């Protein structure tokens, strides 16, 4: 119910804006009747208005806008000359349109049939001037219409008295630049940090923190309200993809329809903005690589038109967007061969790799299984850019595919980039935070549970072997030094044989690593701030936040750290290869 109300408000705001624009353009057209651009704009706007109204089920507005659109279309095609006798009913029609739009708010009864019929007559008779001459003919052609016009006009005449009084309509919506919202969110973030600081001080006090319960509640409410303001419906973005799909399908000479689901799912506007290009890419990729040509589909007994489904679902802390096609599915053997030839994996790995990891290989740089390069897919650039973009906001990718049935790319996105639930830990007297979306478990192990394997360390967690890394080693590593000399085992060699280690198990895109930390602190909602120059290029750290103590806490960029650690393995392997030769 609340959603409906919100839709209605948005529609109202947009329509009123359209209405103002129509009025402005119409006045302009009256002064310069030869302006083609004005006419085109009018045509477009009435078309949009019609579409929106029809979508919302406001038939009155839709019908009237439709007639106006037709009329402007005729004028544009030169069938009707816009002269004074035509302008009068058109203005009248627009006024009634405005009244109809306003009626959405108060459910007022606005008569529009009369003016609509009148406009229809103008269209049919190709303008007033000629209609005067051919009145008889028209009368024969549509006597009931003419009669209806007269009758309803008479009725409208009385109604019109009320609507005649020009009032300036105010929308209930305010348009705000995102910049201002960002600023607001920043301020709220600082308020939260300040609140935490006060609470931390009060914690030491005898009176405790009860004193500040109200402060906590209000600031939390404020924070969530501001976050809510920044939420937009994914439909806002999804609806733009109809055109993308159409264009890509035309280029590929394929028949594709787009299906949207869960368009009312809400997501932070900035997340959506960052995402949009990646989504375009993924959709194009589905059309280019997934969906078969119409002939092939018919041969396989599938409907000629392929279907791409964009589905959004909201979860507690995240939004899942799925791009599903009903095409041929991933060819895992081909992916294996390709990855082998590109040297992305070894034969050994290829044999053991589970399918969901194979699926992720398509996001590696330089990877493309299409044998032919087309305009929109197959260049092998793009998918790795998609992955980088998604990594940057901590989105997770999963690829599911069934041969012959299609592929689903599932993206798990944070619903808001501003506030993150994090696990705080201490390492070498500094406090770090790991976003909870990456943490899987917190375990403690003795040194004897951890074993050296290859260039790193492994341990057993719930029956699975996971890599164990001392974050200190990762952070302390000197890029100048030779990489691959058991760097990740350094601290392990130094610690006491009976030492007990606190380990945070993190997972991202099928990679699971246990980070050894000095001390686990607490779980906390933090407001992340970006890094500023000159430390903005630090890749291990995604952002910073300020703790209650006023100290700075670094937020780990888990995707990059994992990429780095596994990159070390790869580098180590390649150096080994060179020395063997």
């Amino acid at each position: 119910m609340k959603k409906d109300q919100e839709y209605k408000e948005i529609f109202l705001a947009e329509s009123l804006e359209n209405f103002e624009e129509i009025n402005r353009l119409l006045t302009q057209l009256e002064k310069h009747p030869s302006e083609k651009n004005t006419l085109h704009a009018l045509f477009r706007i009435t078309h949009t208005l019609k579409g929106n109204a029809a979508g919302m089920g406001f038939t009155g507005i839709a019908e009237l806008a439709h007639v106006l659109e037709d009329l402007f279309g005729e004028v544009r095609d030169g069938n009707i000359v816009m002269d004074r006798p035509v302008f009068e009913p058109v203005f009248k029609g627009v006024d009634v349109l405005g009244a109809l739009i306003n009626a959405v708010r108060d459910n007022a009864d606005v008569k529009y049939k009369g003016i609509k019929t009148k406009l229809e007559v103008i269209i049919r008779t190709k303008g007033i001037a000629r209609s005067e001459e051919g009145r008889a003919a028209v009368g024969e052609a549509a006597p009931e219409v003419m009669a209806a016009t007269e009758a309803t006009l008479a009725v409208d005449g009385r109604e019109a008295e009320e609507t005649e009084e020009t009032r300036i309509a105010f929308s209930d919506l305010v348009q705000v630049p995102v910049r201002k919202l960002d600023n607001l969110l920043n301020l709220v973030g600082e308020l939260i940090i300040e609140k935490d600081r006060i609470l931390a001080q009060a914690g030491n006090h005898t009176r405790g923190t009860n004193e500040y319960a109200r402060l906590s509640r209000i600031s939390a409410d404020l924070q969530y309200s501001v976050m809510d303001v920044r939420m937009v419906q994914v439909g806002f973005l999804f609806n733009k993809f109809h055109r993308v799909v159409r264009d890509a399908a035309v280029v590929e000479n394929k028949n594709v329809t787009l299906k949207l689901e869960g368009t009312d799912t809400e997501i932070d506007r900035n997340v959506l903005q960052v995402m949009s290009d990646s989504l375009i890419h993924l959709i194009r990729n589905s059309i280019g690589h997934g969906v078969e040509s119409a002939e092939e589909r018919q041969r396989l007994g599938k409907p000629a038109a392929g279907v791409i489904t964009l589905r959004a679902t909201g979860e507690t802390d995240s939004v899942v967007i799925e791009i599903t096609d009903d095409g041929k599915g991933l060819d895992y053997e081909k992916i294996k061969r390709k990855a082998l030839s590109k040297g992305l994996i070894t034969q050994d790995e290829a044999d053991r790799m589970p399918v969901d990891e194979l699926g992720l290989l398509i996001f590696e740089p330089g990877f493309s299984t299409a044998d032919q390069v087309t305009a929109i897919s197959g260049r092998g650039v793009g998918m790795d850019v998609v992955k980088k973009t998604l990594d940057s906001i901590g989105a997770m990718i999963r690829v599911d595919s069934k041969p012959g049935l299609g592929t689903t790319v599932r993206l798990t996105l944070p619903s808001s980039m501003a506030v993150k639930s994090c696990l705080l830990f201490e390492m070498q007297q500094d406090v770090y935070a790991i976003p909870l979306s990456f943490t899987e478990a917190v375990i403690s192990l003795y040194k004897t549970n951890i074993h050296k394997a290859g260039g790193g360390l492994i341990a057993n967690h719930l029956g699975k072997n996971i890599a164990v890394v001392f974050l200190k080693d990762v952070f302390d590593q000197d890029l100048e030094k030779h990489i691959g000399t058991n760097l990740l085992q350094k601290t392990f060699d130094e610690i006491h044989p009976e030492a007990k280690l606190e380990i945070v198990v993190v997972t991202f895109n099928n990679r699971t690593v246990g980070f050894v930390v000095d001390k686990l602190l607490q779980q906390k909602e933090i407001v992340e701030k970006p890094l500023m120059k000159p430390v903005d290029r630090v890749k291990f750290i995604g952002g910073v936040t300020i703790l209650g103590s006023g100290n700075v806490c670094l937020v780990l960029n888990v995707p990059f750290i994992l990429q780095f650690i596994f990159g070390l393995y790869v580098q180590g392997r390649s150096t080994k290869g060179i020395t063997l030769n």
Partner: protein
Amino acid sequence: MEAATEQNKTVADGRKAGSFQIIVFKQGNEEYALSIDQIKEVVITPTITRMPQTLPYIKGVANIRGNIIAILDLEEKFNIKRPADQHTGNHYTLVVESEDFKMGVLVREVPNTLTISAADFDESMNIITDVTSESNYVRGIVKVQGRLIILIDIFKVIGQDVMAALRKNTAA
């Protein structure tokens, strides 16, 4: 700070055309200075959080009035040996700001403001520059009251290294 304002007053009387103000601070035994318009404020050094993957002289980041800024140790950057008798630590931070950068420079004593005239300022570059640095961050030498003060452009100091780091990243 009081000393600084006093100095200001004395100079303000006989102010010549083309005079400008600088902030003087000690690094090792040398006196360095920054143009006053590059400096936003002087604060007591807050707790510094170390940052991985940064150049050694970037000591980390700190929270100064809600802004999180990088803290630099110029003594380390310039390879200046700290005198053995001064183990007092870096008590103050000069907050410098430009459109691109905002950062803090560690200093041990309260910096002084000094108004100097253009005549005291020697821009001729008889300074041997580091081969690796492309632009020289030393703007000139100020000679006043028998003191020798090195005026530097803090953003050139950091700018070079950022560019160098960038090159390294693209090469790797």
